């Protein structure tokens, strides 16, 4: 009964209610876009966008203090949204133009984003200490206005990420074939980049910019250990995302721990456990009955005149 009362107490706390709603939204949406990033082997894109978003936070702060707004960081999140979207489009254009310089461009954005953020926050009359809550999350300070913004962005992410699933899968799985099918490849690529940027800014409050990518990628990494289909990978990743967010946040209600870090460590622990248990529970998946060797004819005549071609 005691544990039950404790949980009721947690659910009755308005601060915790808002935090839990935000955590559920982030837990559902982050893996949706994460699936496409993993599919394109761009797992670190979320990190790059996150670093750029930091400059946006600082810019929002600068504009806010120049306009004399009541909380000086009132424009921090809108600033992050704008900077992240622009950063994502720049990364996408660079990726499309030159294939080799993609990771260098990403690196430039990483370092430019952090340095820009620290520099601009100083100009705005703050210190880099003000950025810490964005770097590592501050879910306990989520206001109802924040929550509404999160809700709207979350709806957009789900509408694009789930609604256009087949088209985004097609373009992520084989971009050339998508082009040869007359699909609007550039529009779809930019849609993935922009929606990934929105995801980063949504998740920023919960886990912080430095750990955003973990919430997009780790649930997907766990899911693909146990699934064989893209669709299943996405839904399993969403379930894992929500679970680690809610459980991780709840732990911090009773223990004084950083919510963002707790959630990410939990997600990685789930990965480790699933990876270790997979050989045991993996039996559920029927082993293909055929020879695993590729069916390439060897063109060699072997004694007896048979060709070894299983």
């Amino acid at each position: 009964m005691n544990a039950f009362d404790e949980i009721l107490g947690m659910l009755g706390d308005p601060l915790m209610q808002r935090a839990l709603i935000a955590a559920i939204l982030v837990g559902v949406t982050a893996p949706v876009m994460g699936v496409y990033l993993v599919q394109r082997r761009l797992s670190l894109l979320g990190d790059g966008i996150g670093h750029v978003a930091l400059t946006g936070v600082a810019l929002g702060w600068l504009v806010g203090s120049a306009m004399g707004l009541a909380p000086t960081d009132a424009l921090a999140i809108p600033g992050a949204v704008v900077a992240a979207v622009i950063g994502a489009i720049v990364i996408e254009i660079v990726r499309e133009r030159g294939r080799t310089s993609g990771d260098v461009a990403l690196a430039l954005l990483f370092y430019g984003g952090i340095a820009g953020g620290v520099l601009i926050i100083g100009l705005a009359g703050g210190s880099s200490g003000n950025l810490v809550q964005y770097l590592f999350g501050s879910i306990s300070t989520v206001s109802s206005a924040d929550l509404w913004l999160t809700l709207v962005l979350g709806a957009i992410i789900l509408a694009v990420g789930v609604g256009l699933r087949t088209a985004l899968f097609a373009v992520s799985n084989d971009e050339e074939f998508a082009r040869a099918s007359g699909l609007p490849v550039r529009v779809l690529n930019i849609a993935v980049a922009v929606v990934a940027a929105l995801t980063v800014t949504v998740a920023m409050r919960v886990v912080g910019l430095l750990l955003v990518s973990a919430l997009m990628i780790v649930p997907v990494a766990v899911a693909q250990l146990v699934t064989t289909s893209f669709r299943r990978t996405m839904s399993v990743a969403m379930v894992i995302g929500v679970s680690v967010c809610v459980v991780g946040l709840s732990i911090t209600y009773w223990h004084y721990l950083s919510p963002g870090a707790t959630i990410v460590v939990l997600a990685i622990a789930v990965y480790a456990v699933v990876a270790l248990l997979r050989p045991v529970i993996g039996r559920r998946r029927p082993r293909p009955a055929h020879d695993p060797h590729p069916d390439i004819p060897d063109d060699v005549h072997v004694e007896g005149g048979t060709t070894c071609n299983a």
Partner: protein
Amino acid sequence: MTASTTSEPLSPAIDARGVHVRLGNSDILRGIDLTVRRGEVVALLGANGSGKSTLVRALVGIVPLAAGSVRLLGTDLGPDVPWARLGYVPQRISAQGGVPSTAEEVVASGLLSGRRLRLPRGWRERTHAALDRVGLADRARQAVQELSGGQQQRVLIARALVRRPELLILDEPVAGVDHPSQEAFAATLTTLTREGLTVLVVLHELGSLSPLIERCVVLRHGLVVHDGAPPSPAGGHADAGHEHVHPHEAEVSLAARGGDMGLTDTGMLP
């Protein structure tokens, strides 16, 4: 059979004029004219690096044209092409994605084209019918990554066939593919061409497809050097001791198979 006189009420399936393609500093294609009439089965041959893959990639809009024009099914290359009536089979899955996907999912993605961004009604039945056509009906729920090279190639063929295309463009569909898959593919293609399918196929050797091929276009150094009946194999290519180097794995065969018709850059045509 040959590229001669049948009265054509319809515009050609493929009509390419003066196609130039530059990649970096090199001219890969230097003015290619290619017409494929409806119902024709045309093979595109040439040595490695002669530009045949680049040509089909330019025809379907993957590689940009530096000069020239391409009309597909009577429409200039662009968003207005009836993409749902055209199927393309690449050499391989260009880059395997990081997330597992089933054969069914990969084939279903072929149902999207042009402005259609969502699956049509009855997609599952059409997907299974296409997988059945390439003999993989039982593998629909299996991850593509777990299939063999030949089976993966057949999944890509099913992805092109699921649209029920009028025009099929294939880039070395049987290179490095096991013999049962090659023969299954030839049988499938025979049925489809009887139903009126137009085919342009890039081949390294005619092999099991030779009974189907009505016309051969041979590229050399980015130019068309032959357009007509299938040419005879290069001297020595069919000899027992000939070392046959495949384009991808560069596997060396120790004994050439019967009917093997390879093309090398030198000595294929007098």
